[in-house]
């Protein structure tokens, strides 16, 4: 999705809630991830957003407004998220 919608102005920021750089490196290497990742080892963003479990995903528009949130993961979730992103980018 990161690559698919990049030209339309879509970006991703991954917030890793554990300080496990080796695990992140391995994951990125294994799956060929390219998206920017930050480490929230002191729960700074976690507290700001009130996130209590992962995965939790927010979509934020260009004016900085949260326009959508998904919590958790179910098989096929990525398809619904892709539809949501495509719809928001069409507006």
């Amino acid at each position, binding site marked *: 999705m990161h690559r698919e919608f990049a030209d339309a102005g879509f970006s991703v920021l991954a917030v890793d809630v554990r300080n496990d750089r080796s695990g992140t490196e391995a994951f990125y290497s294994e799956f060929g991830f390219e998206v920017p990742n930050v480490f929230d080892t002191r729960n700074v963003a976690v507290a700001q957003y009130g996130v*209590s479990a992962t995965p939790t995903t927010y979509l934020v528009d260009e004016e*900085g407004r949260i326009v959508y949130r998904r919590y958790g993961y179910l098989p096929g979730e990525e398809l619904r998220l892709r539809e949501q992103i495509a719809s928001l980018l069409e507006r």
Partner: protein
Amino acid sequence: MGNRSQSTVPVRIAALLVAALLLPGCQGMDRLEPDRFIEVGSDAANDERGTLLDATSSSEFGSGGRLTEEIAGRWLRQIEGADAAERLQLAAQFLREYPGAEVISYLHELVGDAYSEVGQPLPAAEAWERAIAMSWPAPDVLELPLTNVQLPYQVGWARYESGDAVVSAEWLTRATFISDRPQLEQGLRFLHSELGAPGGSFAEWHAQERASMAVLAPDFELPGFQSDSVRFSDAASRLTLINFWTPT
């Protein structure tokens, strides 16, 4: 987490444990049954619904009598199995004997269901609103429940049935921030018509309503994996996805 006082955390977790044991399966729209959650900042043991912070640290809660998870579970099962009228009586009795049960989101949900069944939408909406406020995991920056995402939808329709289409539209609009179910748009189109088509077209009105309720994404700056640090506002674009995750 957040601004929640530490002392209420075990209480709410115990409430969640009770609810997790007793919650029925999916009830209509969008109740997620996450299969690989972990709690942020905790290494406590997992169960099938996720890792619970200090899940074993509280075996009692409530400001009245000693209310163990076992007792609460027994009460909730009894309330859940009763018909609507009896359910309301049992819930009131439960709260009289154990005022601490006030924190159990699922109790309020059951009470809301019962009021709805007996044709009293206003107290149903109020009970469901309490269920949202008491829900665990706690509502996030959007102040909307994380798991039981059909509750705002239910509140919205109960508010409509109690004669307040404006508040109904507000709840349904809020629900669109956490659910993409088509019933929401259908309901909002109906309410837009009922309200006399304010704000021009449905699309214009809906966009205005959403904009008025939108929550600004908090900015943060954190150490980066690929760079020294990243400020969210600098990394943001036309549409930005923030994904809280952990490598597994």
